[in-house]
């Protein structure tokens, strides 16, 4: 028997995050977009509720909800505000996860409790000007100098860059790519101005500059030369979480579109009576059902330590393509009102587009998936 059910705790988690999103986040989502900032009191509340540390084990200051719990959170938060979901994702799923998945016990004990509690905010520093899809080609480098590593280079498109206290920085060393924890206040480390983005405007994205930043050798994540596998492992988690975030926004769009279609009259009847509109709602629902199924199936595999890179890639690819189709259909149902900034549809429309780009473009996902297919002679399913 294959059944998808949630535990009582997972349901309580969902209820709590849903209430928080409905009561506190949704009313501010338009303002967060407009002012390009998530208010401090919201970030504080997210921290207090334990949302930042939900996925991590209790011994590192988390609540032990695992990846399934994290996906539930991303889903519910994204019903209200994808900027906030992105901020949480950059902190927990790729920033903190670099230390959690790649770091030594000592390093985890040093950093994880404050990160899980949201007392410190994390970011993930991999991408560079010449190293986007070609991440392995990164130029930031680190050289050993006694008990320190000296980092030089520049990162870009770093979510949480301007607000991060802790950054997992991937740099080239003699033995390959190595990850380090760089902390706010270290001399020579600075963040650029926030980028002016099309969507997820409340999340802060910037460049990070490293000019002879001296990092104690204890801040190395894992072993020298093992940074790239850590980055890939971290991104796999990130891609799955991205799928959950898309899922949440799509559910919200279906709810909004349905309500609108039932109340918008043309030709003396609700437009929901017309097949043209019904078909759009059905198409969205089919995508949601598919995505919901693969997100939680894959999250279950993740928690069992069995998720493959291709599976994460398939979730990411399908989620981002589906949300783009969904926002487009919702916009068509809302028509003129959807195009107006009075309604949230145009915000979802703008927020959705990045999902096909970040955490590895969809083209990269297809390469990853194809590699897996070819390696297994076309047989990667039951």
């Amino acid at each position, binding site marked *: 028997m294959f059944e998808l059910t949630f535990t*009582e*705790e997972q349901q*309580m*988690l969902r209820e*709590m995050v849903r*209430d*928080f999103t409905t009561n506190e986040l949704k009313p501010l989502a338009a303002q967060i977009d407009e002012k390009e900032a998530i208010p401090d009191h919201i970030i504080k509340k997210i921290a*207090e*509720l*334990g*949302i930042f*540390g*939900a996925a991590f084990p*209790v011994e590192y200051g988390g*609540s*032990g*909800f695992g990846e399934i*719990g994290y996906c539930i959170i991303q889903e519910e938060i994204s019903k209200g505000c994808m900027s906030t979901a992105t901020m949480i994702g950059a902190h927990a799923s790729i920033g903190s996860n670099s230390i959690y998945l790649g770091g030594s016990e000592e390093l985890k004990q040093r950093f994880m409790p404050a990160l899980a509690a949201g007392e410190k905010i994390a970011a993930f520093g991999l991408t560079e000007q010449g190293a986007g899809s070609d991440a392995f080609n990164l130029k930031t480098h680190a050289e050993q100098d006694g008990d320190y590593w000296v980092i030089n280079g520049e990162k870009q498109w770093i979510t949480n860059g301007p607000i991060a206290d802790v950054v997992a920085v991937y740099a080239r060393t003699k033995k390959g790519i190595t990850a380090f924890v760089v902390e706010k206040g270290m001399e020579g480390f600075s963040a650029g101005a926030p980028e002016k983005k099309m969507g997820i405007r409340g999340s802060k994205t910037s460049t990070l500059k490293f000019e002879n930043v001296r990092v104690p050798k204890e801040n190395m994540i894992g072993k020298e030369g093992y940074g790239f596998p850590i980055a890939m492992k971290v991104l796999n988690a990130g891609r799955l979480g991205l799928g959950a975030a898309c899922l949440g926004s799509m559910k919200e769009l279906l709810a909004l579109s349905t309500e609108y279609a039932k109340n918008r009259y043309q030709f003396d009847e609700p437009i929901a009576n017309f097949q043209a509109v019904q078909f759009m709602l059905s198409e969205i629902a089919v995508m949601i059902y598919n995505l919901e199924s693969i997100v939680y199936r894959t999250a279950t595999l993740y928690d069992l330590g069995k998720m493959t890179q291709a599976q994460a890639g398939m979730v990411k690819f399908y989620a981002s393509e589906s949300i783009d189709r969904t926002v487009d259909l919702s916009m068509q149902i809302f028509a003129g009102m959807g195009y107006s900034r009075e309604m949230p549809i145009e915000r979802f429309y703008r927020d959705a587009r990045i999902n096909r780009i970040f955490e590895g473009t969809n083209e990269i996902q297809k390469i990853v998936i194809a590699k897996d297919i070819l390696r297994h002679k076309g047989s990667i399913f039951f």
Partner: protein
Amino acid sequence: MNILVAVSRVPDTTTKILVGSDGKFIDTNNVKFILNPYDEYALEEAIRLKEKNGGKVIAITVGPATAQDILRNALAVGADEAVHIKSEQNFDSFFVASQIAEYASKMKPDIIFMGKQSIDFDSLQVPSILSDILDLPLATIVTKLNYEGNMVKAEREIEGGKEVLSLQMPCIISAQKGLNEPRYPKLPDIMKAKKKPIEEIDAPNYENNIEIIGMELPSRSRLNKIVGDTDEDIKEIVRMLHEDAKIF
């Protein structure tokens, strides 16, 4: 300080209610249940009082086996222990109050909190019956509380104004919206709630004082009338408001 909070499991306000096939009770299939919203204020007040003065908060409910989820909710928000008086039969307010009274008479709480009413049957009876059985002072529909020693000052809503009562503990308070801002359960506490104890007590068989004879949904049909804008039409509207709708 020992604090007892009586909580109730009710259908979610957004749930679509249907009457069951016996015509005497709602069809509980596919109905989402929640902790009664007024009980959330009672629970919050209890936890705040405990945080200030120490002691423990025990949440109690009377209901079927499925009602245990709201006790887990109460434990996740901050109750220390929970008591589940189990009964699968349909029951009236007197039964609920008498079961809570029986437990309270052994536990001897310093104060009992509960919502002013459950949003399912809306009887508003349990606080009063409980107060009668236990012979304890009661303040209902309370929006503000102050504690001085073993005295409680309770501000309650009355028609068009407020009334302030002074009660001596032990006493009973029924909570109204506005009493406080209920907190969200924190994630570590949701996990910890799993390990907190729920005492299960089988309720005795009981003959209801009140029998439900029938239940039906409110009629949804509306009598819309469209009139024009001539002086005659305006006269007709006035007549309809006066004679048909009897508004004035």
